[in-house]
């Protein structure tokens, strides 16, 4: 394999991995608070459609519009997550069914499609797209240039977020409290930490990040809106959190690994590798199964890092 192929593979891994990374970071924060949100797919689609609408309709210069579009996606994702938060935290409804409901509600045949039609986005070509930045004019440096210094803003934002989330979890007090809420809400509550507040906040922030992850599809990957264009990325993001043992650093690796798999098909086909395209498209899904099996057996059997209270509602009055 020559170095230009390697570089192009890494670049495509980063590009296809970025929405997974953003959504995965959001889900990581949500799950660290003990809430399981299976609605990532729906939140991403809402982010994607809202961002595209903003980018198409908002007057103004490119960068400003794009920032607004990303912000709108974050709001859309956050609002969706709020529904899940209310049901699963306040009403203590079954988190699995609530997350599924969110995906059905907002998903490919739901609200995102509704809005896509209402806003007449179908078939429109993207007006503003995220452009790769030439950071410190280093884009032409061999190997490192295209990988590190020639990416778009959301890629840099995702890198920043990995660092921020890791720092937040392990080096700040709220991060410490967040971990305690996910591990043992009763202990956190007894120490005066607002379990409900932490769970709400991180569920909504998680949704916002999923929304931003979704916006990457319409603002960078495909430059148009079609129903269900995330094609399961939200679910893969959830699997990635398990794969990463709830740690942001591993999540970065996992996201790019899956990004590589997603981009691999196009790349190999472009290079004349003969195989049905369905086979390449199926690789990420099959790999998710394989990775989940690997994580649940053998070397990882000790359930490293699963927030102990994940998926269980907390109620002080009934004990825990």
């Amino acid at each position, binding site marked *: 394999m020559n170095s230009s192929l390697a570089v192009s593979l890494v670049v495509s891994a980063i590009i296809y991995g970025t929405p997974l990374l953003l959504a995965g970071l959001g889900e990581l924060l949500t799950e660290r608070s003990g809430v399981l949100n*299976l609605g990532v797919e*729906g939140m991403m689609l809402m982010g994607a459609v809202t961002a595209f609408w903003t980018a198409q309709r908002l007057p103004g210069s490119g960068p400003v519009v794009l920032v607004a579009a990303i912000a709108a996606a974050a709001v859309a994702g956050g609002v969706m997550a709020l*529904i899940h938060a209310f*049901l699963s935290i*306040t*009403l*203590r*409804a*079954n988190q*699995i*069914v*609530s997350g*599924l*409901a*969110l*995906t*059905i*509600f*907002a*998903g*490919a*045949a*739901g*609200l*995102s*499609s*509704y*809005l*896509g*039609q*209402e806003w007449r986005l179908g078939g429109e070509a993207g007006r503003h797209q995220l452009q790769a930045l030439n950071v410190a004019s280093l884009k032409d440096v061999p190997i490192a240039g295209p990988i590190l210094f020639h990416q778009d803003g959301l890629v840099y934002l995702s890198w920043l977020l990995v660092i921020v989330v890791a720092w937040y979890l392990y080096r700040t007090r709220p991060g410490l409290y967040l971990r305690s809420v996910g591990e043992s809400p*009763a202990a956190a509550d007894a120490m005066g930490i607002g379990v409900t507040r932490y769970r709400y906040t991180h569920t909504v922030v998680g949704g916002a990040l999923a929304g931003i992850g979704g916006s990457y599809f319409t603002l960078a990957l495909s430059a148009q809106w079609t*129903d269900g264009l995330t*094609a*399961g990325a939200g*679910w*893969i993001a*959830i*699997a990635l959190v*398990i794969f990463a043992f709830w740690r942001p650093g591993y999540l970065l690796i996992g996201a790019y690994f899956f990004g590589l798999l997603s981009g691999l098909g196009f790349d190999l086909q472009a290079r004349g590798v003969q195989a*049905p*395209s*369905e*086979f390449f*498209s*199926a690789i990420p*899904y*099959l790999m*998710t*199964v394989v990775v*989940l*099996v690997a994580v*649940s*057996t053998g070397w990882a059997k000790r359930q490293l890092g699963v927030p102990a209270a994940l998926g269980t509602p907390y*109620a*002080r*009055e*009934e*004990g*825990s």
Partner: protein
Amino acid sequence: MIRVERRLGVPRWLPYVVPVGSLVAAAVITAIVLLLSRHNPVTTYQQIYQSAFVSPGAMSSTFVYATPLLFTGLCAAVAFRMKVWNIGGEGQLYMGAVGASGAGLALAGLPAPVILLAMVVAGMLAGAVWSAIPGLLRAFLRTNEILTSLMLNYVAGLFLYYLIYDSASYWRDLSSPSAKVFPVGKNLEPSAAWPAWHVAGLVIPMGFLVGVGVAGLLLGVIKLTRMGFEMRVIGEAPAAARYAGMRTRRAVAWVMAASGAFAGLGGASQIGDFGHVLDPRGLQQASYGYTGIVVAALARYNPLAVVVVSFLIGALTNAGFALQGPQFPAGLVGAMEGIILFSVLAGEVLARYRVVRGRPSAPPSEPGRSGVEVDRAEGVPGQPVGEVAP
């Protein structure tokens, strides 16, 4: 501050009030969404009602959509009852369709009842095999079945495309020149078409009747058999099930397989009742597998209720497709289904718990119902010793 407190008993009205209340609540919330996007909810609902029940052929068409939902609803109901989260009804339905159409094609020329039976068996088997993958992984390796069953939906969908669009498979029609350019599946012979029941101008597909039979059978198993008893205990109290010597892992794997078999039967009915050809787009357009989850939840996982609910949601889906177009909001049906599911969840909670505002723990408002509860965390058993109000 809103809080909820647990009721002790399950009120008798719960099974009826929650679904009906959820539908009403969903209708109201959807109306608000429609108003916000400048649609007239009254006309929209009228349109839905018309095209689901009143227009010529509407009722028969509703049965067309209700039939697969009945099967995917049973698929979700049987698994969710035991807290096994099979989200793979979609893919299991596809595989059932692959299996049934394969059997139908292979047995062409044999007597119709033989073909019919073979299609049913092949469909169920294919669905069961597909769901057994996440089932066995969950049971014996503790792999999260939500994600694996879901991933396999995408794989099954791609497999369908591969069979018809991207290969010279057994299912693909390569007999005519045009079929080589515009890929289609092989048509089954008329003898492989399932009969329908024509009554009072209605066409009720055989698949629906089979589904009703399966639902009745399933209810019997749940209520009357040892297996049903085990399902209850394993679902409600897994630790107690293990303590009682139940083979919990085996049960999880079997229930998952059964769940997939139901969806697979739905796939078989898609071929035998309606399509008579393996058509990837047709199978995928309505996401019957996911909608089955809504059906099951609204039916509170009761198989017979699934029959009724599948008809209702089938009507909604039917209307959605009939009205499709620029005048009718796309995605409305899906959004409405999501809202129904939210409402069911909230309703379930509100029925099981009391909602309290502000101060925690109001005095019991229903003295007739309240009993003595053990507060485990505190280790404070109620007193006086073991009395439950009648």
